[in-house]
């Protein structure tokens, strides 16, 4: 069997994508299609005094112009953040009201105040420009510094000083004591740069309303259509769940940015009812830069203490997170529970304390972006280790080795119980692959060419497979984090798997089929995966946090357990054998040691003809299951980046990038490697190229690909990817999840390499050529001053 677990099966979904037959949301066009265009604020902070729609309404082909007061007047609820975080003093987070169309105030450039519905997209856009909005501009706080300054503009009335929460995790006294007892304390200030996710498919929504049935259908670019329906129904009061169908068809990348419910989807649904038309909105890239949730954006000061043997004695972190103008769906959890619990890294650290303050600013909301909190943690911990090694004059790999966790499970002082791993071996593998031993010679050779060569490590851990519902609930999550599956064996033996996971590039149609093919020993072609439609699939939780394999596939496995049990009952009955003697192989259910068998499709047919089933058995062969993990999974990795810097220009070339990962069991190595490639590319993007910049007035200055640097082919190397497998004991497949590792592990490896090359540790991301050139100069003048 070459299609089962562990095989690089070529993707089944590729044929439609390579022939232009993919079906994305913007490809949907209904019969009575109309188009929406939003009227957006050019001001970062302003009161909406009046909206004059006369000129727009007078245009031929304009169907309606709708505003926020009408929307709230129809009972459409505010957008919410679904994870409640309490401050250290026990007070709840200060969540400000967020209407899909602003009613009183706009709080970031791009905040929508009205929507135009027109016969064509071009006309809708032109008419939107004709809507006259009278704004009274207010002082702007576009940065953390501005938002936290004394007398800063108040963005939401219920968040004094723009503070959303002041939260902590760990034992502060213990961390202080650990630092006090240290022989050496490393202090680091760093910034985690703000990023725009930029999936290549812009967001889109097509909403239609059936007045006779009072039923809505929404096509949308979502990573979790089921949760979208729940939230649209329960919180935004668009329609009860049974009157709302949400379909996420082919989705062109997400990276977190398509997890959330956005104002546009709510508005399109509501507008479809108001106008009795199908309403389509598709973002253009300029609009995406303005309105897609951003990622990261932290500033941190941290201290780590070491004893005389280089063992970590304590770690104390103070982070301020910019959440933008409103609290998006998961935003509160990203700098808290997805961040602080990772502060132990791959290390045995007994004393940790992490304080996080979250702050409003007049910028687009910030939420999860590939890795979500874990890249920020890994960047801090791994920059810290490298910096400490330099200060202690130790080999950075050796310092890490002295602190690695050695046995599993390992309980950290910050909530997490690591499941499985072998960190020293992983680092060995990476060092070998990177030929670290040969580095000094390569560095000397580069120096002859006038180039500065550097090497940087990142040995990181992540928590994936979000996660036990009970634990999440106790920490404030508003939803459970299990996953569902339904496995349908058809009368002819083909199999449909309906999963609550959602694929937007991850290749589920192939990998999910592989685990079914493996289990029932049938061709992968005979299995199809159905996802992304709330009318077809039962409630599920969607794809983010590298959870499709550890949670989504596990649910499929549970459902297959049930199918197998029934199959064996049916076959045992038909073959007059004991269930214990049956094996499923070679497309049949066989009685061990005999030539008696039932072909796979014969079992299916038997289940549905129901002519000869065991007494009391229901006909049919379809099982559902829900899987709720007992713990997160903990993929780990050892990345080594080697760079060459041109001191004349600051241009950095990545000459080698090694990624050694432990994802537990691997279903399809080709797809897993693809995930690593893409994640590393995004990590390199964060480290060297990408940054969202707002000016002091809250104007977005990086609002197109002319100014926001997307990694291109020529910016990136071939990656050397390898794996070790320590299966996770917490799910039936032993998988850990692979979607985010690259984005989590790469940034510190890159910055550690560049700072090594230039001999100046003070370098913020993105390390553009300009920034590196400046750091080289600053390093030289610092040396001259010494």
């Amino acid at each position, binding site marked *: 069997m070459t299609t089962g677990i562990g095989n690089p099966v070529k993707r089944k979904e590729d044929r439609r994508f390579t022939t232009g037959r993919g079906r994305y949301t913007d490809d949907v066009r209904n019969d009575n299609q109309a188009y929406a265009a939003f009227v957006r604020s050019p001001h970062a902070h302003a009161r909406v005094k009046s909206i004059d729609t006369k000129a727009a309404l007078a245009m031929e082909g304009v169907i309606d112009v709708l505003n926020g007061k009408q929307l709230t007047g129809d009972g459409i609820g505010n957008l919410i953040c679904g994870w409640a975080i309490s401050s250290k003093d026990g007070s709840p987070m200060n969540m400000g009201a967020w209407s899909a169309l602003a009613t009183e105030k706009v709080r970031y450039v791009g905040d929508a105040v009205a929507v135009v519905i027109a016969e064509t997209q071009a006309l809708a856009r*032109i008419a939107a420009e004709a809507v006259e909005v009278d704004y009274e501009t207010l002082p702007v706080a576009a940065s953390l510094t501005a938002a936290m300054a004394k007398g800063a503009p108040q963005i939401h009335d219920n968040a004094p000083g723009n503070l959303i929460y002041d939260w902590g995790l760990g034992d502060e006294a213990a961390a202080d004591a650990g630092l006090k007892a240290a022989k050496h304390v490393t202090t680091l200030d760093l910034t985690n740069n703000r990023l725009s996710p930029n999936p290549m498919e812009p967001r889109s929504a097509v909403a239609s309303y059936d007045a006779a049935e009072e039923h809505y259908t929404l096509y949308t670019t979502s990573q979790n259509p089921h949760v979208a329906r729940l939230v649209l129904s329960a919180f935004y009061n668009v329609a009860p769940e049974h009157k709302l169908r949400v379909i996420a068809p082919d989705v062109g990348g997400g990276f977190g940015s398509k997890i959330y419910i956005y104002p546009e989807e709510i508005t399109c649904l509501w507008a479809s009812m108001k106008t009795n038309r199908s309403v389509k909105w598709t973002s253009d890239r300029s609009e995406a830069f303005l309105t897609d949730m951003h990622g990261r954006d932290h500033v941190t000061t941290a201290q780590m203490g070491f004893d005389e043997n280089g063992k970590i004695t304590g770690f104390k972190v103070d982070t301020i997170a910019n959440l933008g103008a409103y609290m998006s769906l998961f935003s509160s959890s990203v700098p808290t529970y997805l961040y602080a619990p990772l502060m132990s890294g791959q290390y045995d650290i007994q004393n940790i304390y992490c304080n996080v303050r979250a702050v409003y600013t007049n910028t687009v909301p910030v939420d999860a972006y590939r890795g979500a909190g874990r890249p920020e943690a890994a960047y801090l911990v791994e920059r810290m280790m490298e910096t400490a090694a330099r200060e202690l004059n130790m080999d950075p790999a050796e310092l890490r080795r002295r602190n690695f966790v050695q046995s599993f499970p390992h309980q950290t002082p910050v909530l997490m119980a690591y499941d499985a791993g072998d960190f020293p071996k992983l680092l060995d593998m990476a060092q070998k692959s990177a030929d670290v031993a040969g580095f000094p010679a390569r560095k000397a050779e580069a120096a002859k060419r006038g180039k500065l060569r550097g090497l940087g490590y990142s040995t990181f851990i992540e928590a994936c497979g979000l996660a036990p519902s009970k634990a999440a609930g106790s920490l404030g999550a508003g939803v459970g984090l299990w996953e569902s599956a339904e496995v349908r064996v058809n009368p002819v033996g083909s199999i449909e798997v309906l999963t609550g996971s959602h694929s937007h590039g991850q290749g589920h149609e192939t990998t999910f089929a592989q685990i079914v093919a493996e289990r029932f020993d049938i061709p992968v072609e005979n299995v199809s995966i159905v996802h992304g439609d709330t009318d077809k699939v039962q409630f599920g939780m969607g794809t983010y946090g590298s959870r499709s394999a550890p949670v989504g596939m596990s649910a499929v496995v549970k459902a297959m357990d049930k199918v197998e049990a029934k199959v064996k009952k049916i076959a045992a009955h038909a073959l007059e054998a004991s269930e214990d003697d049956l094996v499923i192989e070679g497309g049949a259910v066989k009685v061990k040691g005999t030539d008696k068998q039932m072909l796979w499709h014969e079992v299916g047919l038997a289940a549905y003809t129901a002519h000869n089933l065991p007494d009391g058995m229901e006909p049919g062969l379809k099982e559902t299951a829900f899987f709720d993990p007992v713990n997160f999974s903990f993929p780990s990795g050892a990345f080594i980046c080697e760079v060459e810097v041109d001191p004349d*220009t600051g241009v950095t070339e990545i000459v080698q990038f090694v990624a050694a990962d432990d994802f537990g069991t691997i279903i399809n190595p080709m797809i897993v490697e693809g995930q690593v490639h893409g994640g590393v590319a995004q990590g390199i993007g964060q480290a060297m190229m990408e940054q969202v910049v707002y000016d002091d007035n809250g104007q977005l*200055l*990086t609002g197109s690909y002319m100014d926001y640097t997307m990694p291109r082919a020529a910016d990136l190397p071939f990656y050397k990817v390898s794996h070790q497998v320590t299966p996770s004991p917490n799910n039936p497949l032993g998988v850990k999840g692979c979607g985010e590792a690259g984005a989590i592990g790469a940034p510190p490896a890159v910055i550690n390499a560049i700072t090594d090359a230039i001999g100046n540790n003070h370098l913020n991301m993105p390390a*553009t050529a*300009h920034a590196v050139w400046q750091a080289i100069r600053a390093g030289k003048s610092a040396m001259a001053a010494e």
Partner: protein
Amino acid sequence: MYPTKYHKPASISDAVALLAGNDEAMILGGGQTLLATMKQHLAAPSDLVDIRAIKGMSGISTSDTALTIGAATTHADVAASKEVKKLCPALADLASHIGDPAVRSQGTIGGSIANNDPAADYPAAMLALAATIVTNKREIAADDFFLGQFTTALEEDEIITAVKVNAATKAAYAKFAQPASLFAMVGVFVAKGAAGVRVAITGAGDDGVFRHAGLEAALTADWSDSAVNEVAISADGLMSDLHGSAEYRANLIRVMAKRAVAAT
């Protein structure tokens, strides 16, 4: 896009007639800048006058020492031209690095020069090669043509029909790309020919393409990359933006000038 009316005149006089007296009409070449601007609703020409079908607007002709390149000749055609490669390989090389392959197959030399984007490549070549810009009305020396960012000597209904470039004995272009747009953050074109040594810099100036007297003097005395080291390159008047400070651009001018000279 806003509604517009498209015209494809077959002659210069038809084109001029379409442009005359209509402030809102614009000339369309390859459209790689104009159409992108129109999509953003930042330009709303009432009429687009597509000059690519006018006879004689495309193509490259040569004499022993000079090239005449039709205004509607695409970057890809300039890059691939045997004549250009022979008489002025630096110009072919420059054209082969404008935008990306799809942009090069559409964008035109006339459009680039008429637009005079402060980060465009061609204006540096025209200035350094002492090219002549030929219009339907006159011939304009490059020195008199580029008048600051997005500003040229062109009158309202004046249409570039061709550029004339003399072969240089030595010439090269070195570009440092702005990382996001890949436009020139600093582009330095060095040339030595009948017009002497000329060095033109694009991308860096606060007001568009300019010649650098210091570099020209130094390279006139000694055409070598080490000569560049001795030249004072001031950051005054250079652009400072998200992607690079004026000081960085000044540094890049030196580095790119050296690389250009070294490439000759």
